[in-house]
């Protein structure tokens, strides 16, 4: 067997200067304040919160109806601006760079956990990954690892072997390997990806919002099935309590800094595969640090779309993602699924 070289993004991003970024970001919003919940900023400085806000998990839903211009593919520049707006708004920062500095510190190795099992159309989009890499580099991060389960999955979503950019590596767990010992919590016993445990100091999760035929839906919490060696064992009973238990594993819980949910296209039925007839051009990003709140909000978006299309709810199909409530319960406390405690900010 021979090791496979690291991957790289197939479509190379255009170069953008930091000053340009700042100018764009500053023109955006900034009224909100950072929320430092659960797996949030891990010791990095947080914004000042009012008492009322501190009780809530902020979830920013940023949309741009013109994200695809007049065509069908995403416009990279607009996507970058959308990302800036979302992050800046989430942290209530004065500029995108200010916001990113609350997420990561120079010198850290930052992992981007994408979801690319379904190939193009229902995976984290290459252009979003490009945009995040660009901003991280501008924030002084020189070591970035984009990872998921298999090299072949990365490739099928548009990432390919042979990094052409310094400081960025694309790697599947099949190449990086897994830890020797089991990580155990509740119903789960798994070997963890070494990319997560050894390579990355911090992880930014870039999940994809979509329906899931077995687990109900997949978004922030379930994205970390891609960090374990045996996800096939944990889809029983609509993923409950397995999804919550996987997220309790310390290496996962402690390293996640931020979730940037890819909702540019939402597979609201037929997922996790890409089936274009049920792919909704939502043209949005869903950002937060509370994965339970993100999942709750994501679930509601899927249900709203299903209802508008005259489809049955996930509950009616016996696949309500009850693992979200489990993740919020007193045995897990991974975040909140209580709408009263979620500050949903639509921009």
């Amino acid at each position, binding site marked *: 067997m021979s090791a*496979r070289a690291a991957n790289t993004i197939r479509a190379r991003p255009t170069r953008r200067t930091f000053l340009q970024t700042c100018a764009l970001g500053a023109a955006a919003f900034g009224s909100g304040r950072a929320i430092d919940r659960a797996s949030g900023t891990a010791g990095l400085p947080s914004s000042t919160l009012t008492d009322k806000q501190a009780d809530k998990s902020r979830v920013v839903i940023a949309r741009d109806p013109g994200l695809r211009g007049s065509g069908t593919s995403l416009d990279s520049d607009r996507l970058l601006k959308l990302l800036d707006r979302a992050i800046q708004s989430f942290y209530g920062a004065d500029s995108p760079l200010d916001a990113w500095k609350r997420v990561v510190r120079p010198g850290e190795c930052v992992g981007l956990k994408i979801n690319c099992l379904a190939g193009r159309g229902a995976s984290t989009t290459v252009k979003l990954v490009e945009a995040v890499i660009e901003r991280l580099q501008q924030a002084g991060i020189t070591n970035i690892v984009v990872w998921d389960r298999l090299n072949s999955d990365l490739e099928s979503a548009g990432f390919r072997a042979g990094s052409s950019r310094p400081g960025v590596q694309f790697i599947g767990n099949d190449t990086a390997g897994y830890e020797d010992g089991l990580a155990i919590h509740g119903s789960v016993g798994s*070997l963890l990806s070494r990319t997560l445990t050894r390579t990355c100091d911090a992880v930014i999760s870039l999940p994809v919002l979509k329906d899931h035929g077995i687990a109900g839906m997949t978004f922030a919490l379930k994205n970390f099935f891609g960090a374990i060696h045996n996800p096939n064992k944990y889809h029983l009973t609509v993923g409950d309590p397995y999804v919550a238990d996987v997220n309790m594993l310390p290496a996962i819980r402690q390293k996640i800094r931020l979730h940037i949910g890819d909702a540019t296209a939402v597979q609201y039925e037929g*997922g996790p595969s890409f089936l274009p007839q049920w792919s909704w051009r939502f043209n949005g990003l869903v950002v937060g640090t509370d994965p339970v709140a993100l999942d709750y909000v994501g679930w509601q978006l899927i249900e709203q779309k299903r209802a508008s299309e005259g489809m049955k709810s996930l509950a009616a199909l016996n696949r309500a993602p009850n693992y979200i409530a489990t993740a919020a319960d007193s045995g897990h406390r991974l975040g909140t699924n209580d709408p009263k405690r979620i500050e949903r900010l639509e921009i």
Partner: protein
Amino acid sequence: MILKAKSVDRRSFLRVAGATLPCLAGCGLASAASPSLGLRLLLPASDPDAQFTVEAKYYEKLGYRKIKCKLCPRECVIDDRERGYCGARENRGGTYYSLVYARVATAHIDPIEKKPLFHFLPGTSAFSIATAGCNVNCKFCQNWEISQVRPEQVRGAYMPPRDLAALAKQYQCPAIAYTYSEPVIFYEYVADSADAGHAQGIRSVVISGGYIQQEPLKKWCHNLDAIKIDLKSFSEKFYKEVVNGELKPVLETLVTIRKQGTWTEIVYLVIPTLNDSDAEFKAAAQWVKSDLGPDVPVHFTRFHPEYLLTNLPDTPVETLERAKAIADAEGLHYVYVGNVPGHPAENTQCPKCRRVIVERQGYTIGQIHLKKGKCGFCGQTIPGIWT
């Protein structure tokens, strides 16, 4: 007929691997003391995938590139590009594939007694292989580093059926044993290898949890020589909570195997506090007697803490003896105590004259007093495959 004792170390794997299984040793499969799983998992999945991939025999195509697997009772419904619970089967564009055909993750030459099969060619060796994957997830699995991983997460040697049979023959193993993980999930490979083996005079035995649908099981019964079933408890609750499976289909499997006339033995791994009550032993023994008959051997074996059940102690020998006493009292003819080397209940006794007819010490066979399948002392027919 009296056979001389045969030392187990003559059949020990390491010697064989080093001296005579270069194909396995060369790819790292042969070493019993193989690198840790983590090291093995570091290796990329660069095996040419295609040679291990065959279309699955039992599945149903659903709409929108989904499929439903019909091999085991779990009946996984699987989306495109996803795998079933066992991790060994994958939907690719609406066609379902086994990823483990001829993909041998481990190979050893074991005494047949290690399976354990006590009424099947005693004192012989079984060429024993497994692929990665399993359709349940027992918290006590002794082989989880093979059974609970995906095929690409461990090294795999390509060993097509004819080569497997030839190797078994070359190393004087009268049988191939499909074991360690769960042969149900490498069903197609087992079926073809059994045929290839028979063509070369080699028999095939399966060591299984018995979680399989009836149609594939019946075909197995026709081309396998023996099937040992792990009856992991006699309680649905245990199967749900500890095995991630179901008891009922396993009982149906045992009934079918008996009806089809395939030789079978049962292992019941006794786990302290979880499946070791008198009531459960009694219920299991009564069911075996009424639904399978008293001649099916039952092995009560000792548990050692492993995998996700490391908080429980080894099974006390007295518990195993209690289980045996209960099963004996229910009228089962061949009840053994296992994983306790040197225990007298490793021996086979004639149910009529009570004399020892197959003597065992661990995996070492002592004297055998059998004549054409009958007790060498009183002439009682002893069920099994003896020649």
